[in-house]
């Protein structure tokens, strides 16, 4: 009871977005001409089309039937993405193309609370990602796969139960070539039970050693090594939308599927990302691309979706969206922080980075900034914008105003004195700042703290160059 097989019976149709639920009769065949129908949707089934039917016969039943070409590369990509997502359950995930995955869950049973619990969790998760599936947990990988392929989900507890479950399967479930199948039919063997009853040596002599080895693997008598799937370094997911989405708000739901898939992949790799690169494809305009950033690497889908919602709320689409692409390149290991023995005593409340990410997502990257004081005599160079939380280099000066104008504002002069809605009282203190000839911002100024009639205190200066004009540069608050 160690192997969990996932079979995706509808994968060839599921790689076509919206095909399963479409009201038009649709079917998939390898070749639109000759190959029999592989799969068809509910609408086609309602008209009598069945898998295995020849294309001509199917068209006779439903004249408007569209036969889609099979897309093996898209199926493979979907299978790999699903494998990357499954790594959350066990590191030993193997692909069983064309439409299966096998998970070695021996070491995970206890963590997830037993066989049925893990089987149900996988099944719910895969269905949540939008795939129909059958999941079977059995003592051997081959046995689990063949049962799942035959639509028999559930948990097979022991070797004996596996043997009886396999015995009921038709021989067509085995991986045989056409000749082998004909031979079995000619010998009157229809079920696996008939095969299992026969002596192995005679079976090998008649039908070749391959079949016997296959039976041995199914029952666990022969080793069945399976290469483990290695998840890729970065994540790239694509989703074609079943219908064009005209407004950004409607995209959130579609994006959720990609975000969930990404976060499953990250969970399996014990990693997080800081930047999500999104690309929205339109019918005939260049793609709309944007980047979603967070200040710390994360893999919580709820957090990313909240950020995405804010970002999409700010987005205006030039045209309806047909497909979504999500890329995450800078995948970094995310280690859980150390836990406190007595959490209620821990006083350090780390500033919540999620708040700043939310503000950035809605207001733009440049709208959320910190301030830094720099050691320079020139007020313009004594500060700069920085990232929130970055330490400054200077303790500052107490005789400076609380507000600095971005640009010094020229003041009127009346009767030789500066004027700002009234005459200014210059006080007695004067500070000369004359520096910066070496880096292009040369200043030569005399600063005063001026008081207006109303009591407001202003920081003004007289330029010692050129026109010797008066300027307002700061306001004491």
């Amino acid at each position, binding site marked *: 009871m160690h192997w969990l097989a996932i079979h995706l019976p509808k994968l060839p149709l599921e790689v076509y977005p919206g095909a399963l639920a479409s009201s038009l009769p649709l079917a998939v065949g390898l070749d639109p001409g000759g190959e029999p129908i592989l799969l068809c949707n509910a609408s086609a089934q309602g008209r009598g089309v069945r898998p295995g039917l020849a294309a001509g016969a199917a068209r006779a039943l439903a004249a408007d039937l569209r036969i889609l070409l099979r897309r093996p590369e898209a199926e493979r990509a979907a299978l790999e993405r699903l494998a990357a997502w499954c790594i959350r359950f066990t590191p030993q995930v193997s692909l069983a193309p064309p439409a299966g995955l096998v998970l070695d869950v021996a070491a995970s049973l206890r963590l997830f609370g037993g066989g049925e619990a893990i089987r149900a969790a996988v099944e719910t998760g895969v269905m949540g990602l939008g795939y129909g599936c059958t999941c079977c947990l059995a003592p051997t990988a081959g046995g689990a796969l063949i049962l799942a392929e035959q639509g028999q989900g559930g948990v097979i507890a022991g070797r004996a139960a596996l043997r009886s479950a396999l015995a009921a399967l038709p021989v067509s479930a085995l991986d045989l070539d056409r000749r082998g199948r004909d031979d079995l039919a000619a010998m009157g063997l229809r079920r696996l039970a008939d095969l299992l009853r026969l002596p192995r040596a005679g079976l090998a002599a008649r039908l070749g050693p391959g079949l016997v080895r296959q039976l041995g693997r199914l029952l666990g008598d022969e080793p069945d090594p399976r290469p483990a799937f290695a998840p890729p370094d970065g994540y790239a997911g694509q989703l074609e939308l079943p219908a064009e989405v005209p407004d950004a708000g409607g995209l959130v739901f579609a994006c959720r599927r990609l975000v969930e898939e990404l976060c499953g992949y990250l969970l399996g790799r014990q990693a997080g990302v800081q930047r999500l690169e999104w690309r929205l494809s339109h019918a005939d305009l260049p793609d709309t691309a944007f980047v979603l950033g967070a200040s710390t690497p994360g893999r919580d889908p709820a957090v990313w979706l909240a950020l995405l919602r804010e970002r999409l709320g700010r987005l205006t689409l030039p045209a309806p969206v047909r497909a979504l692409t999500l890329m995450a390149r800078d995948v970094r290991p995310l280690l859980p922080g150390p836990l406190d023995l007595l959490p209620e005593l821990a006083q*350090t*409340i*780390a*500033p*919540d980075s*999620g*708040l*700043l990410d*939310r*503000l950035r997502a*809605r*207001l733009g990257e*440049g*709208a*959320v*900034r*910190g*301030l*830094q*004081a*720099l050691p320079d005599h020139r*007020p313009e160079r*004594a*500060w*700069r*914008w920085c990232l*929130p*939380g*970055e*330490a*400054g280099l*200077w*303790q*500052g*000066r*107490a005789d*400076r*105003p*609380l*507000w*600095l*104008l*971005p640009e010094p504002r020229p003041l009127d002069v009346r009767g030789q004195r500066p004027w700002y809605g009234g005459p200014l009282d210059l006080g007695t203190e004067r500070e000369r700042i004359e520096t910066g000839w070496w880096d292009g911002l040369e200043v030569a100024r005399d600063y005063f703290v001026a*008081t207006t009639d*109303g*009591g*407001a205190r202003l920081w003004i200066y007289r330029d010692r160059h050129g026109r010797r004009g008066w300027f307002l540069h*700061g*306001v*004491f*608050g």
Partner: protein
Amino acid sequence: MSLEQLLAGRPDLWRGRATPAAVPAGVPTGYPALDAALSWGGWPPASLTEILDARPEGTLGLVLPALVRLSQGPRWLLLVDPPLPPFAPALAARGLDLTRLVVVAAGGDAAWAAEQGLRSGACSAVVIWGAGAAWRLVALRRLQIAAQTGGALALLFRGEAQARNPSPAALRLWVRPLAAGLEVEVIKQRGGRLGRSLRLPWA
């Protein structure tokens, strides 16, 4: 000499001002005279305070001592839509830890940004320069509730003309500049007395 001052000089007189038992301690404003006039002994904690001021840049000096004190903690100080960039050297010289300061240019989203900051619990104070925007009563109430939820100080600067409009704020002050300081009038105070006018020197 005003009646207020006369009465204040008579400690033997019971004046019927029942101080509620459970007034939470406020954040000291840094001005002892103002602390004494407020029933919390400082800025009302986890509540909205409105400061009405004719000048668009408001009275940063009035709230700065409290911000300096709060910047020693682990939480952010959010400045939403200041009309000018605050001058970093002056703030640093007064002891404000600039690494806790976040300046947000919210544009039309000031109410949203302020509410996010207050509600998140990640901010100890959110200062909003709201003179440019029309604040509806609902928006103010949301700020008050967000401040309660997140346990943060909400300080909102608005124009003088708003004094006549109702507000859910716990405290409303009317501030006018004087030659050597500020004149502060308490025009609303939850559970406290109104009409008190104070003169504060520059800190």
